[in-house]
């Protein structure tokens, strides 16, 4: 039997992705559509009768009359005109049974395509709970396509759909006469097929929204949620991070004992384990942050947060829609910039992309944590606040304030004076489905670990090589690294960075930081452990205690200020290039971030020294 090509289509928030995850499990591939910056999700499964199916999860769309790049992809793939995509053999149109008035209109649009269509009436369980009775045979007759009830969040919720795929293929529906009033038709279908036994105002959404969208309680709830989120990232992750850190230290010691002293031991222990280990430690923080964002997204809360913050964002010339990408940027600017695809206004989208790198991403945390721990005294100020926490908060705030200022400048410079739009659905609240969260987290963890395993390890090894060779000549005095290539590069960069108070070791660490900011910590560990000539596997762990003897407070604070802007992240610049298809935007981003970083570090260094 040949493989069946199926496309899942439907409105945003119809539960399409949950159904996709249910059908395909972890046999998924996420990429981009050829020539577009739209995420392409494909998966595979086998029906009970043994038929192979290739399932494409198309971007959610309200209409075939596209208003965004996502909707244009959906339109073209459904029509079979997208270059490089096989025309689907069957469209499975997913509609939320509790929101048929909106979703049925799009379902009816499908009839014009001339392809077999099946209507998956999703979340049928929620409809029953909401007191809705739906006459399925009648709905099937009036929509002109097979109607199959599904529950995307239940283990066997797609059984009827699978049975349909194994049965006789559905016919191509007859197109509606041109000029049909789809809204009127939907109204008629609903009147014929759906009976309500519970009034609308008693629904969960209505009761919850009275609090969540309340002008006073809404913002209070939002602040509490964000506070809990940051608390979780910084406090709850600590035991896990300590455990990984200890495990890596132990691993270094054990491996160090097994290998004979020499270049190989130095490479494995100083290069690979010390370098990668210092980065893997941050996995718990990154996962906790992503878990929060995924839960807030799945539950339907994020668009409400965007609603509450729209006014605030409009002061910076943006809309509430920018809130979600910017919040994700606290985890990492790469998914944040990718999330700007939901912003329809091109100007708002561009500004959001440009300021996303100013949100303090989790990769900067290793640097912040290390420097704050080493240089800021652990003491209480104003009776209840921790000075270290306060400095960390200040660094986050500096990023946000800079982002607002940059956004205002960009908006003022931009000639596009078109109206900013918000128009956004506030979807039904949903209990986040553990499987969907787990799949999302697994994807994140995989990306992170692959990065550690490839880019970061190879960079640390390269850096180790640069720092170890050539070896110092016989009879040389001073640390060996002074004689190495890295030392020479660091010395060459020094004239540019000396005004910021940076020494050549920092300059060396800035180079691999280009690939991934968090590598700077591993790089400092490598540079100092090789330079100190002490028991090397201990050096990485002792970096925090060692730095104050090498750097002044002004240097440390200057490096912190540098990292608020930290232009050196190739991954961010690459994703900006991919999302905007413009090298100019990449150059503007890198240029302004470098300028601000230099200025801020310069000012910090000289002000602290003067005090």
């Amino acid at each position, binding site marked *: 039997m040949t493989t069946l090509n199926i496309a899942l289509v439907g409105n945003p928030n119809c539960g399409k992705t949950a159904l996709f995850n249910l059908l395909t499990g972890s046999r998924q591939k996420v990429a981009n559509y050829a020539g577009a910056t739209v995420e392409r999700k494909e998966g595979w499964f086998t029906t009970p009768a043994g038929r192979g199916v290739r399932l494409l999860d198309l971007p959610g769309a*309200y*209409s075939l*009359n596209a*208003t965004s790049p996502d909707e244009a992809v959906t339109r073209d793939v459904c029509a079979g005109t997208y270059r490089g995509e096989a025309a689907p053999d069957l469209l499975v149109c997913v509609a939320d049974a*509790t*929101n*048929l*008035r*909106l979703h049925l*209109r799009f379902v009816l649009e499908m009839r014009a395509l001339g392809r077999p269509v099946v209507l998956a009436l999703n979340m049928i369980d929620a409809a029953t709970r909401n007191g809705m009775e739906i006459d399925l045979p009648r709905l099937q007759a009036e929509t002109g396509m097979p109607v199959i009830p599904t529950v995307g969040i239940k283990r066997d919720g797609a059984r009827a759909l699978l049975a349909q795929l194994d049965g006789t293929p559905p016919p191509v529906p007859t197109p509606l006469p041109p000029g049909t009033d789809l*809204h009127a038709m939907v109204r008629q279908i609903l009147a014929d097929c759906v009976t309500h036994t519970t009034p*609308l105002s008693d629904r969960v*959404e*209505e009761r919850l*929204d*009275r609090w969540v*969208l*309340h*002008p*006073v309680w*809404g*913002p209070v709830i939002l602040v509490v949620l964000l506070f809990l989120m940051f608390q979780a990232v910084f406090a709850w992750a600590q035991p896990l991070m300590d455990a990984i850190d200890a495990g890596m230290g132990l691993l270094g010691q054990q491996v160090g004992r097994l290998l004979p002293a020499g270049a190989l031991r130095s490479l494995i222990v100083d290069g690979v384990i010390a370098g990668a280990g210092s980065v893997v430690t941050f996995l718990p923080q990154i996962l906790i942050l992503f878990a929060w964002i995924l839960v807030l997204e799945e539950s339907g809360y994020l*668009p409400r947060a*965007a*609603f*509450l913050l*729209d*006014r*605030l964002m409009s002061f910076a010339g943006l*809309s*509430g829609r920018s809130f979600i990408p910017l919040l994700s940027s606290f985890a990492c600017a790469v998914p944040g910039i990718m999330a700007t695809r939901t912003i329809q206004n091109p100007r708002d989208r561009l500004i959001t992309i440009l300021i996303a790198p100013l949100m303090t991403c989790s990769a900067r945390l290793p640097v912040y944590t290390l420097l704050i721990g080493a240089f800021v005294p652990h003491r209480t100020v104003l009776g209840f606040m921790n000075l270290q926490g306060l400095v960390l908060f200040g660094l986050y705030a500096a990023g946000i304030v800079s982002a607002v200022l940059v956004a205002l400048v960009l908006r003022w410079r931009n000639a596009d004076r078109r*109206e*900013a*739009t*918000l*128009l*956004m*659905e*506030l979807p039904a609240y949903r209990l986040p489905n553990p499987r969907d969260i787990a799949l999302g987290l697994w994807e994140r963890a995989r990306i992170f670990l692959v990065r550690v395993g490839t880019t970061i390890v190879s960079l640390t090894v390269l850096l180790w090589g640069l720092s170890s060779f050539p070896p110092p000549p016989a009879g040389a005095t001073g640390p060996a690294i002074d004689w190495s290539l890295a030392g020479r590069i660091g010395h060459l960069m020094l004239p540019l960075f000396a005004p910021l108070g940076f020494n050549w070791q920092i300059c060396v660490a800035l180079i691999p930081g280009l690939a991934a900011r968090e590598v700077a910590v591993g790089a400092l560990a490598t540079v100092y452990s090789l330079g100190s000539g002490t028991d090397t596997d201990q050096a990485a762990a002792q970096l925090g205690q060692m730095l104050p003897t090498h750097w002044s407070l002004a240097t440390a604070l200057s490096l912190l200020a540098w990292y608020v802007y930290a232009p050196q992240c190739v991954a961010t610049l690459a994703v900006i290039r991919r999302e905007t298809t413009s090298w100019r935007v990449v150059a503007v981003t890198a240029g302004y971030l470098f300028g601000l970083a230099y200025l801020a570090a310069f000012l910090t260094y000289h002000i602290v020294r003067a005090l």
Partner: protein
Amino acid sequence: MRLSDLPRGADAIIDSVNDTASNDPVARRLRELGFVPGEPVRIIATAPLGGDPMAVRIGFTRFALRRTEADRVTVHIAENPA
């Protein structure tokens, strides 16, 4: 009256959606989302700091829209609130 003139909790019926320019994408999208004559709407919330944007329930769906977007929709107060 316009949708943007309604206070929180008000129920109304849509009269029309008007383009502010020719082929206005916002007006077109509003119509596709179900803002069509005869449809009942309710203002379920207004945002902090000046009541802009507003959250509107139409049918089973809730939408957030800015006042400039809601300006395009003319309504009359419903006599028998849904």
